[in-house]
């Protein structure tokens, strides 16, 4: 049982503001991912929660109790570091036992817990080794083991997978997900990798320049990005954007036309994901610049002559346009996003009648 509340958390380093008025509630058993580019403040937030940094302003509450003045020790949290931070002079067993020893637990309980955790993580055979004798994946397991060994009320992960190679990263990601399903503990997980965020997170908190851009479930973040930043940061290849204005419920420019049931609105930006565009084999204003084959999917990068736009479009399985060929595109109207001043503008299609409904914001 543990919940976490951040109330107006702010952290300054000299003149730079790393965290700016962060409000966040993490429920019991939640897997909350802090996602954002480097320097967005996600690691600082995590370190404030751990007690490794002292916030400039704001409050951190665990289970409703303010822990601002508590040392990391008193907070009873566990943390997995990017570099694992295993103690090089201790064996795996001693590493696992260390937090329990520090907590002054009796010897037989320590032995039992270390046994449980090591079999859970399948590292029983490594117990006698030292960290330098382990592979990257094994070190990662030990680091996770050291975190879960004392049943902390809160798990903190700081980019735990970024030192692993791609294959191992996938494996460990699945393992962490399975572990969470099993233990049902509250997790705060920091990453800059959107795949990790979307696959692991129950709640994703997208951060940018010390602020929260959006809090939501993975589908929500992907399907209804709250800001232009979130829309551009999540998704690979990234969402396509184009500036323009809405007149009489229609956005029409760059050879594409999409119905948007909103009042006349100048100075907007529309966004469409590559998979929500259909490419047509007929001469249009776009020219194919590059074909990118990712194995499962193929994308065409198309350029607008004179328009300066470069978009990505997912290709159908059965057709590949040649480079330099002129093509036309049309979007899936219901998957078009509208942004104004960087924020999302909401609207609804009236799908029963197929007729544009009244504008809603």
């Amino acid at each position, binding site marked *: 049982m543990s919940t976490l509340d951040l109330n107006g958390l702010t952290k300054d380093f000299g003149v730079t503001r790393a965290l700016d008025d962060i409000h966040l509630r993490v429920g019991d058993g939640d897997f909350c991912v802090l996602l954002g580019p480097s320097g967005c403040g996600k690691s600082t937030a995590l370190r404030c929660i*751990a007690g490794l940094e002292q916030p400039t302003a704001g409050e951190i509450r665990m289970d409703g109790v303010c822990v601002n003045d508590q*040392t990391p*020790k008193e907070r009873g949290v566990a943390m997995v570091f990017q570099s694992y*931070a295993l103690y090089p*002079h201790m064996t795996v067993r001693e590493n696992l036992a260390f937090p329990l020893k*520090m907590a002054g637990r009796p010897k037989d309980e320590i032995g039992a817990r270390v046994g449980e955790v090591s079999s859970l993580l399948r590292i029983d055979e490594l117990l006698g080794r030292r960290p330098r004798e382990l592979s990257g994946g094994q070190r990662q397991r030990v680091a996770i083991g050291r975190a879960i060994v004392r049943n902390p009320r809160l798990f903190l992960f700081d980019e735990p997978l970024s030192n692993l190679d791609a294959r191992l990263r996938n494996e460990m990601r699945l393992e962490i997900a399975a572990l969470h399903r099993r233990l049902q503990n509250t997790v705060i997980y920091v990453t800059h990798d959107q795949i990790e965020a979307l696959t692991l997170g129950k709640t994703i908190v997208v951060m940018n320049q010390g602020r929260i851009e959006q809090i939501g479930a993975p589908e929500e973040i992907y399907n209804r990005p709250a800001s232009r930043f979130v829309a551009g940061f999540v998704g690979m290849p990234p969402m396509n954007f184009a500036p323009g204005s809405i007149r009489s419920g229609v956005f029409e420019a760059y050879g594409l036309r999409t119905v948007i049931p909103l009042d006349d609105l100048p100075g907007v930006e529309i966004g469409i994901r590559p998979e929500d565009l259909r490419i047509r084999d007929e001469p249009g204003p776009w020219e194919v610049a590059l074909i990118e084959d990712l194995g499962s999917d193929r994308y065409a990068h198309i350029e607008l002559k004179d328009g300066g736009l470069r978009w990505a479009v997912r290709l159908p399985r059965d057709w590949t346009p040649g480079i330099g060929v002129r093509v036309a595109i049309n979007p899936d109207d219901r998957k078009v996003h509208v942004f104004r001043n960087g924020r999302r503008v909401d609207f609804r299609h009236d799908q029963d009648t197929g007729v544009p409904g009244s504008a809603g914001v």
Partner: protein
Amino acid sequence: MKRVAQVLVIALVVLFSVGPFAWILLASFKTPASIVERPPTFLPEGSLTFYQTALDEHDLLHYAGNSALVAGSTTVIAILFGTLAAYPLARTRIRGRRVLLAVILAASMFPQIAIVGGVYRLLLAMGLLNTYPGLILPYTALTLPLAIWILASFFKELPVELEESARVDGCGMWTTVWRIFVPVAAPGIFTAAILVFIYSWNEFFFALLIMTDPAVQTLPVGIAKFPGEYTVPWGELSAAAVIATLPIVILVLFLQRRIISGLTAGAVKG
């Protein structure tokens, strides 16, 4: 040709470095008759007479014991205090960190002559002249800057995550230092200890002025004041010098790497 030149140069370097020591080493194995031969000869008979006199009549082991006691205690105290001090200086953002480091470094540059008067009077007032603590305390002050400097430069290189992880695992600062930093930085601590030991084993100036009673004098004082009424007893003196140097030479032979890394630690990285 190039190879020959290289070997010659290396031989020259070795001769320059160990030649003088080899001279007294050879002399120490001569006999009272052969040592006064003129012109002097190089090769000794391999006699142990001088060692016997040095140990029996001049009570050299007693001086060696004093040296070992003083240098050993200084090393333990300086490393203990130095480790404690180096941690916050290297790893925390406490106010005045840079000033403290500068003051500590400056203290290592004070000339002994400018300190000795005050120290002498203080020890006199405390009744510590001619006592072991009377020498160990100023030695600790003399070697602490070196110890702190080396230890801090070793501590700085340890990853930050290591101590953060320790803090999250429930360590206070005290436990972090003794449970994590000391074991992990053990090579660096060992290096600092060697240097402190060598320094205190060799120190002469303070020992000369504070220890006037032969019962508590250290080896360098014993050798400098080696009794000789009309002529210097070169044979016994050579044997004494070899005995005083032997522990240090052994340290250097086995720990050459560590000593070099310790002496240059901080110097290069600033």
